[in-house]
């Protein structure tokens, strides 16, 4: 009986220890906010070579499958692509005209922010180790001038921002994560709102008044407020709008313009250096 009681006490002490250690870690995380934690950097540093190796191996294997084994329907695909090239050529001409028009207009307007933002390219080498958070690892870190709160984009639009940077790798919180929020506006109507993650593959645009004219297909851009994302970057497209008369705001679902499930290369937007 005394042995059983001692064992029970021992387990209680261990239980209390686990809860205490976890609470201390959570408190450190919440109090430090988005600052680097030493042990976090150490673990990320230790695992990144293996992640790199595995990602490259999987990419190579999938490349072999794509180019040698999945040749069925290539001829049909070729015909479709030729038609697509024709369509894109016409579109390019149209855009060239518009671009020249834009250049002429730009000369007339005294733009406040004329400086181009420098970007760094990085490869996605891993994803979140848990089920619940939407985060990716990239192969650039503090030694490549990456720091917390830098915007991460692709040619299609915003994908997220850096939440942790260690020497050679960084963590990027995707815009679909339930903790992500991007101050945004609609391209057409300039109606403001906040695009928040849902934990699913889509986002929601919050705080858009029921009076605002929002349609399916409207494009959502970053507003530049909040200091993380530069103004005018594409976030996504509206796919669902629900207006309830008794509520102040609309329920708007936005699909990110970038394909977050197939991220390979990304761009990190560096801060603009002020010339003194």
């Amino acid at each position, binding site marked *: 009986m005394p042995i059983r009681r001692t064992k029970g006490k021992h387990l209680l002490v261990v239980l209390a220890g686990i809860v205490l*250690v976890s609470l201390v870690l959570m408190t450190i995380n919440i109090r430090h906010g988005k600052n680097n934690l030493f*042990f976090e950097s150490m673990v990320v540093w230790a695992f990144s070579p293996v992640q790199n190796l595995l990602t490259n191996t999987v990419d190579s294997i999938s490349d072999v499958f794509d180019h040698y084994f999945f040749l069925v329907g290539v001829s049909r695909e070729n015909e479709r692509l030729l038609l697509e090239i024709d369509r894109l050529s016409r579109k390019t001409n149209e855009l060239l005209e518009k671009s020249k028009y834009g250049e002429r207009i730009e000369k007339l307007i005294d733009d406040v922010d004329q400086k181009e933002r420098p970007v760094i390219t990085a490869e996605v080498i891993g994803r979140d*180790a*848990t089920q619940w958070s939407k985060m990716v690892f990239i192969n650039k870190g503090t030694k490549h001038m990456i720091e917390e709160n830098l915007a991460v984009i692709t040619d299609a639009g915003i994908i997220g921002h850096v*939440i942790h940077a260690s020497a050679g790798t960084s963590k990027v919180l995707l815009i679909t*994560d339930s903790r992500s929020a991007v101050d945004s506006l609609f391209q057409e109507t300039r109606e403001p709102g906040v695009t928040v993650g*849902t934990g699913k593959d889509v986002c929601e645009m919050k705080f858009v008044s029921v009076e605002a004219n929002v349609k399916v297909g409207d494009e959502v851009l970053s507003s530049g407020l909040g200091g993380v994302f530069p103004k005018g970057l594409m976030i996504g497209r509206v796919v669902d709008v629900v207006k309830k008369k008794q509520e102040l705001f609309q329920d708007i679902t936005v699909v990110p313009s970038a394909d977050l499930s197939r991220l390979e290369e990304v761009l990190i937007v560096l801060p603009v250096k002020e010339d003194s």
Partner: protein
Amino acid sequence: MILLIFVLVLVLLFAVQTTFLELFSVGGVMPDLALIFVVYCGIHFLRNGGIGVGVLVGFIQDCLSGALFGVNTLSKGLTGLFFSALKDKIIVKGILPISFFLVATSLFDGVIYFSALTSLMGAQIKGDFMFSRILVFAVFNAVAGLFLFYVLDAGRQQLHRKFPNQVLRST
């Protein structure tokens, strides 16, 4: 030697979890190899080794995640403690008991994360979405867990043949 093999298995599990496991995801849900590994170690480590493994694996998972730090240390640590304390009192062999415990621990893991995220981080997640996701996660873990248990069992027996030890169960 056993320590070295343990570290290699751990590195491999996390490397797979964070790289190409997503290829096998169903509706964005994929199995949690770390959780399955903790349940396995809780059952098969002699004495209270499973507790240490649970805390260590949870801690590494926290480091490799964008979620709130400490949540995985808590859930995996408690999982390790549960199985270390009760492994001799409950049936932990056979397909049904293993599947049952994997489903139960997955539900526990999901609920801890959901509670931490909504209460401590102030995230807004729709409850029905989260709970359906946790259910799929639990079933997926049970299926993947059976396979991983089989592989780990084979490795454990091989390890005992080559390096007889007092760390892992021999049967």
